[in-house]
């Protein structure tokens, strides 16, 4: 058992024992280190001004990912390297290639967002991709700029990122990897006392045991949600248990019949496997949060927090996924749709831990479609998310599973609408349109959505009907290029 968090800063190991369980990385940088290059723009992980690069070992090599330091709990960085904007340039008359590219392309105006962009681009620079503009858009979706209109920043990304990295970090990669390897001691981390602690067990057994012992502790994976309880609601969270250090819970297994995710696998880690189920699942993931959020946020967390507007639950419900929970040594499995009981109420006992998510692959006669409606296309929360799985027999819909976000107090299926489309003959001329009235009537019986700042109840119902018809249209063979303004399946395939 270890009682101090350890991470790497500027080539040295930092070991901290006495830190508040809720201390954020941004406060550590700005208030303790006085490294004020990293900025706070929103303190909720939406603007990216506080972006730093977090280096972790993957298959023996260091991989840098951008992270929002404002909601990143200091303790979750155990075993990682933290790179901030001041660390990049070798000297006062030298700039890192990404910094130079931003200067050359006139990529800064007020400059307040620039350090965050620099760090996202630093991670892209080290990703050894040769990104096109779409990929750059995706990388930069979590960094807001209010001055430039992004074009010069995207140009800078295209100019400097591509091919193997050649900076000091690349040159010193072996030494840095060795340092991180040393930190990976497999010891449970428990900093603090029983009254106030930050714990990060290193095995599933000790994690389950600790959660059972402290049923009132807050279980945290990426803290992309819990971070806001701290920075916005100013809640006292004296006991925090972090799931991210358990290797078995971060595993992603791609089997013939199904994909199995450890509940602590990040979106980024799960992206390829889930996208392999269907391109639309990949697109939902791509639009979920931002690179920064997906680098630390987890599919498990998206389920466990029970939000009515989480994007993964409706997709997973439509796919017929199941989840495994563990309380102490007892494990149980249930269909994911049974997990969500009511607003803020889930089928989880105190101290019980979500451990695994199992998602069956689509059968040969099954078709999947999902659509996310939001005010902004990237990095927004859904007004409505509709996910559909149709079983086909001949040209007919033999079975339908539809699940929705943003339509009710929980992620929820729409049994009457499913019934309304079951039996439709998609090969008959005009089929989807002919079903419009019955689909809309059924939806109105399935749901009474609410008005809020994202959308009105009326719009939600209206657009939900459109999404069902769109799914039917596409299942009947219409190309998504004719039915969607963005997120074309043809592009993803």
């Amino acid at each position, binding site marked *: 058992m270890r009682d101090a968090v350890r991470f790497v800063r500027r080539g040295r190991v930092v070991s901290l024992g006495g830190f508040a369980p809720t201390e954020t990385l941004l406060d550590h940088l700005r208030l303790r280190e006085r490294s004020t290059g990293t900025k706070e723009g929103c303190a909720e992980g939406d603007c990216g001004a506080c972006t730093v690069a977090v280096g972790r070992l993957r298959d023996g090599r260091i991989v840098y990912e951008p992270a929002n330091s404002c909601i990143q709990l200091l303790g979750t960085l155990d075993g990682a390297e933290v790179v901030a904007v001041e660390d990049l340039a070798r000297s006062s008359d030298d700039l890192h290639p990404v910094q130079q590219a931003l200067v050359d392309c006139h990529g800064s105006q007020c400059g307040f967002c620039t350090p965050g962009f620099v760090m996202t681009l630093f991670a892209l620079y080290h990703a050894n991709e040769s990104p096109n503009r779409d990929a750059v858009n995706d990388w930069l979706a979590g960094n807001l700029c209010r*001055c430039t209109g992004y074009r010069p920043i995207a140009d800078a990304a295209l100019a400097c990122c591509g091919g193997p990295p050649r900076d000091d970090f690349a040159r010193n990669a072996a030494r840095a990897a060795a340092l991180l390897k040393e930190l990976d001691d497999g010891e449970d981390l428990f900093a603090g006392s029983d009254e106030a602690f930050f714990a990060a067990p290193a095995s599933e057994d000790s994690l389950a045991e600790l959660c059972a012992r402290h049923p009132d502790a807050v279980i945290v994976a990426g803290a992309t949600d819990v971070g806001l309880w701290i920075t916005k609601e100013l809640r006292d969270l004296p006991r925090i248990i972090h799931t991210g250090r358990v290797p078995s819970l971060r595993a992603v297994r791609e089997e013939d019949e199904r994909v199995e995710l450890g509940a602590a696998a990040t979106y980024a880690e799960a992206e390829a496997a889930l996208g392999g189920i269907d391109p639309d699942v990949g697109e939902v993931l791509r639009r979920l949060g931002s690179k920064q959020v997906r680098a630390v946020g987890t599919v498990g967390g998206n389920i466990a927090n029970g939000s009515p507007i989480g994007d993964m639950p409706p997709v997973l419900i439509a796919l017929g996924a199941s989840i495994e929970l563990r309380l102490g040594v007892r494990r149980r499995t249930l269909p994911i749709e049974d997990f969500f009981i009511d607003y803020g109420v889930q089928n989880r006992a105190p101290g019980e831990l979500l451990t695994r998510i199992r998602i069956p692959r689509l059968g040969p006669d099954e078709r999947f479609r999902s659509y996310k409606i939001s005010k902004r296309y990237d990095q927004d929360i859904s007004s409505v998310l509709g996910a559909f799985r149709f079983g086909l027999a001949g040209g007919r819909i033999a079975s339908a599973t539809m699940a929705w976000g943003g339509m009710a107090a929980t992620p929820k299926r729409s049994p009457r609408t499913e019934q309304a489309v079951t039996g439709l003959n998609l090969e008959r001329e005009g089929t989807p349109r002919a079903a419009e009235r019955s689909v809309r009537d059924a939806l109105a019986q399935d749901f009474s959505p609410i008005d809020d700042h994202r959308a009105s109840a009326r719009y939600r119902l209206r657009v939900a009907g459109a999404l069902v018809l769109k799914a039917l249209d596409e299942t009947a063979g219409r190309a998504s290029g004719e039915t969607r303004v963005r997120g074309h399946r043809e592009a993803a395939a």
Partner: protein
Amino acid sequence: MKSVGRALPHDSAARHARGTANYVDDLPEPPGTVHVAPGAANAGRGLIRSLDLSAVRSFPGVLAVLEAGDIPGRNDCSPAAGDDPILAEGEIRFPGDVVFAVVAETRDIARRAAKRARIEVESGSPRVGVDDALAAGSDLKPPYGFERGDAASAVAAAPHRLEGRLRIGGQDHFYLEGQAALAVPGEDDEIRVFSSTQHPTEVQGLVAAMLDIPDAAVVCECRRMGGAFGGKESQAAQWACLAALAARAVGRPAKVRLDRDDDMAMTGKRHDFRADYRCGVDASGVLTGVEIDLAARVGCSADLSMGVCDRALFHADNAYHYPAAAIRSRRLRTDTVSNTAFRGFGGPQGMIVAERMMDEAAIRLGLDPLAVRKRNLYRPGRDTTPYGQTVEEHVLPDIVGALEASSGYASRREEAARFNARGGPLRKGIALTPVKFGIAYTLLTLNQAGALVHVFTDGSVQVNHGGTEMGQGLYVKVAQVVAEELGVGMDRVRVTATRTDKVPNTPATAASSGSDLNGMAAKRAARKIRRRLAKVAGRRFGVEPDRIRFENGEVGPASGEPRHGETMPFAEAASLAFTERVSLSATGFFRTPKIGWNRDERSGRPFLYFACGAACSEVTVDTETGEMRLDRVDILHDAGRSLNPAIDMGQIEGGFVQGLGWLTNEELVFDQSGRLLTHAPSTYKIPTCSDVPADFRVEIYEPGRNPERTIHRSKAVGEPPLMLALSVFSAIVHAVASLAPGRVPPLDAPATPEAILRAADAIRRRDPAPARAVPAAAAG
């Protein structure tokens, strides 16, 4: 080695990228710095029935809790009207009105303590929106407007009459750096305030009045802001005042930095408007008469709303000639946060009405909207604005024509029509719209600027001026002007932080006027020093001072002089001047000539010139969900003779994208108590990288040259490009209009997916067959 006209990087570009450019919260904190958090009641307008701050005061780490009664002088942070208390007295005006301020050892403690307050408010039924305020007749200031000719008769007599209503949403500035200030007490009553403000002089004056000390005891300094866009013109003062008040109360340096959610809830935004218009057009779409009524939500106080609403009136013509016009505005008090300056300052809200009328005329008459726009543009003989100023420069026909050709407008419009004719949920729209934006403060007094230039004996130069740097590149432009004037390299010129003890009595940096005013003032200051140096050098070389040239960092006789070719370095000339006891420091002052608007008589010349441009945008809309994709944008914008094309390009592109956000994704939603529900980036969505089309073709208008004698014949470029985004809004209108030719989609701004779908549903002919059966009278 010319400096002016070069595409130089922003003066802080490398510091931005390194993270070494300091904003207020990054300055090394003086020892003992305390932190201040504002406290507000979470209720709608009403009298404060009880205020219990005992739990706040007793919270560990709290040093003081400040209320209105703790203010020694004037409790006001308004720009002029005296109606914005720094701390509420007796009543709160909107949810988020600041009632008290906590001073504590750390920011975290101050914020936590502030939540412990118990405030009871007797709230009635707040007036939240324009409609509420119109119904209640709650004009905060008298209605105002101007007329030319008999508009009502012209409309009545027109072959075609159009009328409609357009709702235009507000906008949060979403500067990435939130409001911040640090106040450091000095000797006796002196205080120095570091503020993220566009208006250091106003902050100085308000802090002095609040503390009941002379202006001369206060210095306000701002090196840079992390974005402002008008949101730190008047809105920075409250936080600077609270920092100063706290510093005075505890005798230690005090810092305020607002949390993003507080910032969005507590500070003003772009005004939302309701516009009602009636106009007459002939068969070719040419306007014969126009009546426009603009109703603006001013919020709970006057702030800068008089100017904003006036500028909306001045821009309700955009670029079009109205033979007869009546343009009126109402300035409506609501129980919501007081709306304020935002890039365009009311202009965008006026111009969108003009563009709606163009689109409506084209759709109703079955004409190409660009043809209608071109027919209505100001041109010689049709050049008098509704407020009486004559449009003297006619660059827009050329700009619009050039963009029409370079964007391939005509063939792309045909392509879009073919695409739409296939039916289906996806529809395309394309629109090309002009921008004409008047440059000058309409309040004459504000059109002045000062500068201070020092030359040192090593030849390095310090420039100070009254303008502030908010990212727009003012500092580098002014440095270019000074380097040009003194014939030295840019590396010799340094622009220092804007401070009220260097250049006093300045207007805000606003109205796109930063370079026009401060560039000219700095040029004059530099010219004074240059003349003195020319005398010194003239003696050395034995020529008249006006025959001395300053070029490439060297000083020497002009060509044609016997000793031409001999030079001395600029530093040597400076050193020589010092030796000869010649001053190397000078001030410069500038006031804009020609202008003057008499508001009461509705006559005069409010603007020195107009900044112009045009944009062509193409969109694809999903008419079943309301989702929209921006496919391509072409822009041609007139920056006059650009001082710095790289900086100007940044203003053009950035302004366009900010306008794009205003008109599409950015939606302010208030609840019935007047509380802002979209108070964070999780719920308020400014554009992100993928909202900007990869096909984004932006050019600066090459022949551009300001006919007025502005600084190096450049044109102001800060605000005008924002309104290029009106092309996107129009393109959406036309995409939706393809559903039912001849019908005008009642699209309101912002065009969120929901707003687009609402507009589409409003014109959609669901079932053409029964529609034909309806009697003509009912169908009409």
